[in-house]
Every structure is written in C-alpha cells, then in structure tokens.
C-alpha cells in the first residue's frame, strides 16, 4: 500500500475544500486510509497517521480509534514516536477510558529513562491527565525526580506533584521532605514551579500552612528572593519590559498572601517588602501594573498596618483613573472585594466608580454597577440613586434585571422618605418594568398600602403612568390594584403632593376596561383589572356599567377571568348586602414572615378584606404588634374579644363556594364561646347576620371544646381552640384569664413552654391587668405548631401583682382535648 500522505499534504487538501460537506468527505476518506494502515500494524508510518488524526480531532471529527495507536507510539523507542504518542495521549485520552491505565507502565519506564527529554515528556503527560490510580502508582517516581539536580526535570516534577496532590490529597505528606531546599535554587523556572507547589500545599491543608510558617521559615526566604528580584537591576534573561521576572514576583506575592492571612508575625515580616514593591514598581506598562495589583491584593488580605492599607487603596484609586481598560477592570474587581472591610476608604472613590457606569465596556459597567450597589448607604442614597436610575434607563437588557433588584433593595434599606421610595419604585417600573422580579409587585403593593398618606399621590401617578404605556406588566398590575383600592381618591382629586388631575369615573373605567381587552395584558393582569373594576363598584356611583362588564366576562374563555366574573356576578345578585364589606379598603399589611398560618400577601396580589367593620381601618401604621393592630382596627376598645387568628385572606378565585369563604371568615372577630366579658364588645358584623351564623360558627369552633387550664386563687385561665385552616398542624389557642377576687391583678404575665417537638408562638396579650370580680378578661393568642401530631402538653407560668405583692405560679396543663392536637 502506498505511503500514507504527509500531514502537510492532508492539511493542504482539507484547506481546498470549499464547503463543510467536501471537507467531511475528504476527512472520511483519509480516516479510512488511516484505519487500514493501523490494521496493518505499520510501524514506520504510525507516527504520521496519528499526527493527522490529531489534526482532524482538532477540527472536531471523532478520533477515538487512534487511542491504542498512541499507546503503541509511547511504547516505541524512538523519540519522535514518543513525542507524538504522548501528545495524542494528552489530547485523546482521559480518565474515563480504560485504555489510559495501560500507559502507566510506559510512563514508569520513561520516568527513569536516560534522556531527560523523554523523562520530561512522561512528566508532562502524567501532570496533564494522570488519573488517581496512575498518580498513586507513580508518585514515588515523581518525588524522586523532585530531588534531582537537573533543573529542567525538577520544575516539571514540581508541577506534576501539584497535579498528584490535586488528584490524591493524601499523598501530600510524601512531597514534604523534597520541598525543603526547593527555594534555594537559582533557576527561575524551578523557583516558579516550587512556589506553585508550595502554594498548592498551603491552600489545601491548614496543617501544612502552619508548618511552613513556623518550621520552615518560609516567609523570610520568600522575602529575600523577592528583594533580590527587585534590587538585582537589569537581568536580560528574565526581563519582561524592564522588570525582572514579573511572573515569579507575582507568584511569590500570592504565596505571601496565603502565608500572611490571619497571622500577625508573618504579616509583620512582609510589611517592608510590600511597601517597597508598592512604591518602586514602574506603572507605565501592564507588567508593572500586574505586580502592583497583586501587591494590593496581598496587602488587603493580610493583617497589614493601616498606612499600608491606605497606600493600597490609593493605588487602586489611581488604577481607576488609568486609561487602560484592563487596569480599570482589575481595580473595580479588587475594590469589590475590599468594600466590605474598608468601606470608608472605598467611599472616597465613589465618584470615579459612578463615572465608570457610563463606560462603553460591558465588563466594566457590570463591575461598576455591583460596586455602586455595595457603596450605597444612608448618606449618599439620593445622589447614588439618581445615577443608578439613569444607568437603568440606558443600560443593556442583560443588566436591567439585576439593576432593578439592586435598586429595590437599596431603596428599601435606605429610603429617606416614603414619597421618595414610591417615586423611585415607580421610576423603575416605568423604565425597566418588564425586567423586575415577580415578587416586586406584591412588595410594592404592600409598601403603598402602608404609606397611607401617599395613597392619593400614588394612585394619581400610577394612573398617569398607565395612560402612557400599558406594556409593562408589573407596572400595570400595581396600577390597576391601586386604582381599584383608591379610585375614589383619584376621582375626587384630593392629591396634596402634586397638582391633582381631573378624572371622571367613566375615564377610569375606560382605562381599566382597556386593560382587559388589550393584547398586551397577560392573564394575570386581566385578573387584576377585573377585580379592580369590581372594587370600584363600592367606590364609584356608576354601578351599572360595572355590572355590565362583570357579566360580560362571565362567559370569558379564560377560566380564571370567568370564575372571577361569575363570583362577582353572584356578589351583585345574591349577596349584594355583603358587597360593601367585602370590598372594603385593605388594612395595613404586615410582611408574610410574622403571620403564621395565614398569608396576607399572595403572589397574585389579590386579597379580600376581612375586616368586619364598617369603619375604615386605622390609618396610622402600627408597630409590628399583630394583635394590637387588629384590636385597633376594631375600634380601639381595650378589652375586646380577640380575633383568633390574623386576617385570613383568600384569593377571590379559590374555593368557589362563597359559603366557604364566609366559613373561614367566621373564625375572625366573632364572639368566642368563652364566658363573655361584661364589657361591651363590638358586635360581630352583619356579615354573619345574613347567614344562620350560630350553627355555622358553632360547627367550626365548637368542634373543639374549651377547657379550663388553671384555676387557683381566684385566677381562672380558660383555653379555647381553633384549627387554622391552611395549616392543620397549627392549633390556635386563646387564653382567657379572669379574676374572681375583689382586687385587680396587675402586671399579669402569662408564659408557656411546650415539649421539644412543638413550636410555640405567643402573641401579645390584650392587657396586663385582670380586672377584679370577673369584670373583664385578659386574652392572649398562642399558636402551637405540632407537626408530629403528638399529644399537646404545656407548662404555664403566671406572674402578677396582687394587692401589692408579687405572685408567681407554675402549672402543668395536660388535659387538652384530643381534637386540639390530632
């Protein structure tokens, strides 16, 4: 068979191919020729064939049939063969092929070969792709070579040792003795790789690290080498742009960093040399900057003295002003790392960083944005936010999502005023509305609800915003929710903060209906608008128009809309008397975390008010005390029947039956079956009047009988129970403490403890004075989480002052009715 073509020929031929198909054809032909040549076991040309195979592999064609041939080449005696064989092994073989283990013996022999280049090849291959088995077998050979005087082999052995350590960490100790005099080498190659080896060992094992610090006195050695490098003047061998061996300098600095981290003595020892490097290095070329950069990182990481740190940050500041983009990028990256620890120092460069936001380079912009967010604090929030919002307007879409979330977080933490906060969020929604995260809509709604004095202003601005643009869904959702809630304020033109606009009810309804029919609205948005329209039925006078809209959507194709419309229709027809109460203004919401079983903020944002009072809720935002909020809402009586659970809310579409909705509502606010206090109670709302409330109510609450937990010295404590609907593992217990003696019990504190498998949450009591002669009760809500459904047991501790003297008592409560915990 004719001699296979040379690699050069092959390459030339492939280059003449004009299409991918032609190229593939040529390659396949050649592959076939190579395969038959391999089959013939042709020793002379094997080398050539494998070379061609490697070329084809680089172009992306499969070459696995050459793997065994590589092994044969490695086993050959000729250097040429070995060279190609090892190259092929590195490119084609890896741990996953079983074939690679066959190499072990060859490599072992070659590691002991007489020619250093063969040894070098073997070390190189082992260091690139040696598997853990191979490394284990050959570690001894590598270690031997680490001690040789041949610098060419020594440096390769050092890097090979690094690879071995990475694959088989247990072998690290083996290389320890060999490292003893690695650093006394003159050859820079060996020095360089030795530093790499030492770095790897120190990073992997804290024991090694302390060993090197103390026993080997590594730091002084490194400092000495570094000093020689800087002071040695011009050395043509290792010079790169006028600096002698910058690569070695950088490596040494990195190792110093690891050694000095967290260790005072080592940091002390390297202070001088770091200062020297920092001040003497020339910064006109990239090389000098690379060294300075590494020095700065080291200074920031070790326990350096403050003067040095200031020097480092100033160097970074200088970098920021450099024209070279790479330097600016690197400076921003390192400032990001140091902003946590040296916040004030970095603040000084804030204006430069903010300027970088306007840079054309994408990588720099991203770094500057991250750094800017890290630098925002209470003092600079206004200025920074202006810049960041401007950036948000003009940046690429890939940044918008991150920037928007960053803005929200910063605004939440540092907002100087509510109006500013709302303005900022509105600005984000109008500019980057489609990129904000999903949970920003409910968060914003909550924020708006809680800033009561801004309602009119907010709804006006939102209304104006959606007149302009209805394509950004989060904005539209928030706007329709607000219009639904505060539409009356909008129409009445009550805005204090800005020029009120004149809007008629019909215009508002036009806008909302427009949202319903627009193609740009998602189904979720449509749901929002429909509910908003419905809510306006109690706030506007044009009820008929609303009724019409609602009944039209009763036959909508979208199931969600249809369900809502049908229910609202029912609300108009059968339950019209309930409508005002159901569609009342929302009360001030707490964040979800503090509410146990109930979720006030649902992700689709729809909540039904269950405040069962005709009056508007308290308009002043309350501190986080849940029970107090609820009590105020009921009209501020001191002792009122407690609302058993926090406001339960249900999305209007869940559980279609209206009766179920009201069934849950009956849990709130109704009178408890406990002995009624003799003070006037705000009566249960007319909501329940429409139904046969008693049986319904009793069904639910009377399911679990109340019990007397404690009755001593005139103090009686009764427990009443509900099961919280969303989460059956939570039992809600209300204690009623009454006092039958003739003197008040003041400073009354009730404490409870439960076994480990339970979790307890105690809400605030209604008061801490138990009036005498059963004139009133102190109530308090306890929530018990019982995931393992074990028998409920409780130990209670009561402290109060009676007739001037403190009384304290402990009791065990074991007689819980089974339904409370099953």
């Amino acid at each position, binding site marked *: 068979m004719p001699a296979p073509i040379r690699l050069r020929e092959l390459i030339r031929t492939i280059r003449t191919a004009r299409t991918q198909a032609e190229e593939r054809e040529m390659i396949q032909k050649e592959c076939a020729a190579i395969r038959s040549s391999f089959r013939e076991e042709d020793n002379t040309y094997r080398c050539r064939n494998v070379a061609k195979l490697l070329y084809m592999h680089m172009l992306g064609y499969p070459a696995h049939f050459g793997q065994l041939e590589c092994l044969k080449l490695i086993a050959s005696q000729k250097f040429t063969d070995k060279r190609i064989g090892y*190259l092929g092994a590195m490119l084609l073989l890896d741990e996953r092929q079983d074939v690679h283990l066959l190499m072990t013996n060859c490599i072992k022999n070659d590691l002991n070969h007489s020619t250093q280049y063969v040894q070098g090849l073997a070390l190189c291959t082992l260091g690139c792709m040696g598997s853990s088995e191979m490394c284990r077998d050959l570690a001894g050979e590598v270690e031997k070579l680490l001690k040789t005087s041949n610098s060419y082999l020594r440096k390769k052995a050092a*890097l090979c040792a690094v*690879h071995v350590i990475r694959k088989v960490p247990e072998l690290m100790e083996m290389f320890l003795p060999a490292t003893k005099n690695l650093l006394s080498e003159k050859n820079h190659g060996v020095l360089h790789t030795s530093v790499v080896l030492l770095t790897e060992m120190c990073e992997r094992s804290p024991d090694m690290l302390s060993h090197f610090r103390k026993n080997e006195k590594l730091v002084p050695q490194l400092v000495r080498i570094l000093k020689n490098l800087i002071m040695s003047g011009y050395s043509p061998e290792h010079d790169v742009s006028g600096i002698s061996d910058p690569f070695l300098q950088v490596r040494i600095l990195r190792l110093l960093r690891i050694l000095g981290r967290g260790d005072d003595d080592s940091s002390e020892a390297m202070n001088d040399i770091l200062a020297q490097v920092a001040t003497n290095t020339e910064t006109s070329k990239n090389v000098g900057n690379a060294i300075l950069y590494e020095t700065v990182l080291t200074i920031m990481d070790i326990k350096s003295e403050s003067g040095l740190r200031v020097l480092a940050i100033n160097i970074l500041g200088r970098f920021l002003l450099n024209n070279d983009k790479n330097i600016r990028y690197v400076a921003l990256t390192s400032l990001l790392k140091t902003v946590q620890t040296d916040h004030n120092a970095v603040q000084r460069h804030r204006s430069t960083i903010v300027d970088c936001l306007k840079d054309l380079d994408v990588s720099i912009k991203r770094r500057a944005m991250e750094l800017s967010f890290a630098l925002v604090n209470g003092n600079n929030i206004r200025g920074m936010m202006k810049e960041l919002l401007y950036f948000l307007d003009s940046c690429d879409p890939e940044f918008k999502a991150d920037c928007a979330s960053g803005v929200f977080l910063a605004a939440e933490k540092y907002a100087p005023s509510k109006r500013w906060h709302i303005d900022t969020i509105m600005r984000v929604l109008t500019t980057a509305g489609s990129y904000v995260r999903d949970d920003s809509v409910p968060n914003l709604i909550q924020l708006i609800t809680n800033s009561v004095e801004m309602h009119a202003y907010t709804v006006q601005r939102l209304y104006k915003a959606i007149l302009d643009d209805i394509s950004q869904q989060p904005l539209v959702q928030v706007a329709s929710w607000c219009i639904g809630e505060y539409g009356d304020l909008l129409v009445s033109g009550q805005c204090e903060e800005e020029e009120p606009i004149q809007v008629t009810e019909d215009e508002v309804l036009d806008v909302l209906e427009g949202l319903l029919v627009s193609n740009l609205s998602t189904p979720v948005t449509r749901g929002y608008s429909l509910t908003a329209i419905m809510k306006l039925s109690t706030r506007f006078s044009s009820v008929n128009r609303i009724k019409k809209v609602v009944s039209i959507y009763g036959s909508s194709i979208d199931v969600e809309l249809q369900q809502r419309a049908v229910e609202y229709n029912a609300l108009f027809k059968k339950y019209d008397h309930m409508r005002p109460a159901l569609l009342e203004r929302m009360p001030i919401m707490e964040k979800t975390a503090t509410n146990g079983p109930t979720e006030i903020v649902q992700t689709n944002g729809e909540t039904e008010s269950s405040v069962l009072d005709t009056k508007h809720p308290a308009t002043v935002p309350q501190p986080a005390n849940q029970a107090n909020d609820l009590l105020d809402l009921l009209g501020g009586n001191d002792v009122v029947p407690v609302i058993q659970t926090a406001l339960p809310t249900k999305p209007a579409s869940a559980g279609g039956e209206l009766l179920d909705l009201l069934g849950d509502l009956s849990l709130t606010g109704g009178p408890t079956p406990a002995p009624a206090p003799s003070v006037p109670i705000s009566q249960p709302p007319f909501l329940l009047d429409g139904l046969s409330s008693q049986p319904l109510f009793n069904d639910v609450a009377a399911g679990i009988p109340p019990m007397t937990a404690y009755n001593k010295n005139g103090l009686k404590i009764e427990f009443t129970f509900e099961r919280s609907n969303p989460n059956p593992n939570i039992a809600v217990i209300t204690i009623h403490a009454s006092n039958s003696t003739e003197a008040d019990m003041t400073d009354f504190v009730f404490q409870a403890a439960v076994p480990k498998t339970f979790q307890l949450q105690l809400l605030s009591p209604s008061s801490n004075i138990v009036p005498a002669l059963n004139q009133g009760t102190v109530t308090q809500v306890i929530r018990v989480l019982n995931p393992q459904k074990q028998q409920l047991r409780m130990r209670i501790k009561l402290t109060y002052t009676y007739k001037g003297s403190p009384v304290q008592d402990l009791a065990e409560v074991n007689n819980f009715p089974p339904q409370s915990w099953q």
Partner: protein
Amino acid sequence: MIKAILIFNNHGKPRLSKFYEHYSEDTEQQIIRETFHLVSKRDENVCNFLEGGLLIGGSDNKLIYRHYATLYFVFCVDSSESELGILDLIQVFVETLDKCFENVCELDLIFHVDKVHNILAEMVMGGMVLETNMNEIITQIDAQNKMEKSETFIFQSPRQDR
C-alpha cells in the same frame, strides 16, 4: 489554574485547542464555538477580560483574550490566576512562537500544529504555568527537535517532517 487554551481565527476556525480539564468531544467543539461567539463581539478598545460562557462553566472562570492580526488567543482561567499576569503570559507565548517560526503567521500555526503544541507544553503543564523565560523555552525546544532529526537520520526512515 488554566482551564483551556484556544487559538482560533477571525472566522472561528480552531487553530489550536488544549483543554486541561476533561470535556467530551462535542462539548469541546461547543466551547470553541461559544467562546468565538463571545470574543468576536467585542469591540477593539474594551478590556480583555470576559466572564466565561455557560459551558466552560461557573462564575469563577474568566476568559482572557488577545487579538493578534487574524488570530484570537483565548485563555480560560479560574480565579487563582492573576488576570494581568495571564495577559503577559499570552504575550510571552506569542513572542516565543515568533522566535521559533520566524515571523510567525497563521499559516505556520496551521501547518505545524504539533510544534505549537510542543512549545505550549514547555510553557504550561497541567493547567499551570511552567516556564516563562523565552530563551529557556526555545533552548529546550531546539534540543528536542535536534533529537528528532537525529533519529530520522539514524534510522533511515522517511523524513518525518510534518
């Protein structure tokens, strides 16, 4: 650690690809394509650092590249390497190639891929920088080439010049 070294031309054709971590063949080709895509979009006067694509994975990895005439030299590294240092390393590599091939151009890389691999093997081993002194590298390469030539002479086999 250096994860990969890639050289490709302005049209994305790979001229050298060396991976120091294992990937399957398909993934390797995909990485080359993706890297080319990211790097070719870059303007001339922006910085030489890029966050890596999805394939070569992880927020830890960066692409550091330099554009010389018709070729892109891309090093994919993780955070343990100094970015500016790698830039210098690329420069040293190219200068070494220049010395070895005498005014190196893309054609030299095309027809002598294995030689380029050998030079690279003297500089970077197992993903770590081995030798940065240009003269040292060239000395070693020359010695090894001499060995090869002497073998072909001794064994009288057809010249294996590739």
